């Protein structure tokens, strides 16, 4: 057999890891030493098994509630299919699960709430290491002159995501039995607190709209439009209460 180049060996080795399960090119098997206890294919199999089990473990750690809901066997099966379509593109394994929720959503054999639960879990992964920001203190809010309010921008921190779902997936996350849940339009805010831990909480429709507008860069007066059915004073009071809550949670970075 002619001696294969480094590139050729690595191509075949890679295919044996990430390609169709258990398929080893004969040239690759010939290029690997068979020992007394293990043949060349068994030795390559050690790497192929380690590749799958390591990456499935990473996905299980990032999507613990999805894994629990689907059960080990089903989760592993889906994770293998996911890996076949989305091999890791980053030196850091942190990004491995970025396409998991859309992947599950495209599958007709996976309930929609499972894909939406995956979105929630991935948002939790994302806020964990999103850029740092010093959150705004409550004193700042009190010091604002009433005349300035309309034009102020309350800029949220980067470690904040809004997850939209057609099921109350925060209840699934907390362990609810999906058989006892009904679909319901749901928006969940996901954020990181000062200690670095990820949190999430559902928002009612108005609060979700206000937060969406703030994230989009709208000034206070535009955010108030979520409450057009109320008097301007009522709207301002309602939003001030929301802001106070969010500032307490550390998700407002600054006033611009």
């Amino acid at each position: 057999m002619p001696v294969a180049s480094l590139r050729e060996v690595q191509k075949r080795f890679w295919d044996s890891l990430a390609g169709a399960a258990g398929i080893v090119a004969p040239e690759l098997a010939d290029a690997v030493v068979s020992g007394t206890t293990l043949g060349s294919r068994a030795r390559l199999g050690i790497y192929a098994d380690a590749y799958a089990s390591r990456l499935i473990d990473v996905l299980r750690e990032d999507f613990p509630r999805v894994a629990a809901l689907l059960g080990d066997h089903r989760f592993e099966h889906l994770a293998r299919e996911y890996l076949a379509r989305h091999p890791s593109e980053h030196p850091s394994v942190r990004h491995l699960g970025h396409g998991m929720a859309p992947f599950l959503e495209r599958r007709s054999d996976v309930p929609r709430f499972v894909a939406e639960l995956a979105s929630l879990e991935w948002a939790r992964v994302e806020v964990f290491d999103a850029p740092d920001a010093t959150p705004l203190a409550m004193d700042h809010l009190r010091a604002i002159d009433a005349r300035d309010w309309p034009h102020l921008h309350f800029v949220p921190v980067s470690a904040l995501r809004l997850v939209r779902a057609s099921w109350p997936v925060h209840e699934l996350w907390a362990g609810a039995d999906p058989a006892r849940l009904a679909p319901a339009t749901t928006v969940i805010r996901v954020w990181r607190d000062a200690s670095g831990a990820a949190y999430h909480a559902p928002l009612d429709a108005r609060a979700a709209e206000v937060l969406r507008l703030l994230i989009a860069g709208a000034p206070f007066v535009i955010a108030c439009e979520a409450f057009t059915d109320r008097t301007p004073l009522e709207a301002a009071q309602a939003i001030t209460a929301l802001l106070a809550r969010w500032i307490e949670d550390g998700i407002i970075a600054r006033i611009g």
Partner: protein
Amino acid sequence: MSLLPHLGHGIGLRPPHYPRVADGTARVDWFEVIAENFMIPGGRPLRVLEQARTLAPVVLHGVSMNLGGSDPLNERHLGELERLIGRFEPAWVSEHLCWGAYGRYYAHDLLPLPYTDEALAHVADRIRHVQERLGRRILIENVSSYLTFTHSTMPEWTFLAGVAEAADCGILLDVNNVYVSAMNHGFSPHAYLAGLPPDRIGQIHLAGHSDAGTHLVDTHDHPVPSPVWDLYADAVRRFGPIATLVEWDDRIPAFEELVAEAERARAIEAEVLGARRQLA
């Protein structure tokens, strides 16, 4: 390698022990961290690493540089490593003598190379490029392996020594990996150590492995077993006092248990060096 200070006997810092760093009770000679775990925009891990370096020297240990790979080096990744170095000022930086990516996809594993002149020249070139880009000499680590190639033309230790000479880099000698590979491929771990250039060994790794029956697996989920301690003693005998680090990555024990392993390394080093002085 005389260029590197003997930092003492440290531990690999992993998330279960972040609280001990945060509250300042993580007392140990030095820390090693996985560089890729800190290539993130923000959050708690970066804050913990800032705190860690106020407690003890920190070393960055990379796992995804793909030094032995045949894809072009990932310059963006090198840029991120450069930024980490600038921010955290590690005592030094290390990587693995292996490959781990193909066609821009990452296996997140330490895959074995054939020990050929082609691979030797290729890896040495890439290490030289990395060292130029980072403006510093790096250490390369031998990995555990479960297979070898029929077209290899030299033993692993000759390959490792050859790469280190050709690239003018240091060696991070993982004593557990030497032992695991020696058992898996049937060579003498002592012959391995005897084949290395003493003046290039900058750091030693210690770890535990598990026995899969047909082969040993580099699992880092056990205490350092006695044959690995014996091999460590042999390394100290041959290479003298070298900065040593205990790795533990799975089923991670209490901080004190980990530090006890580092202390055992210190005691073995003292014993071997004491005996060597008496002989001299």
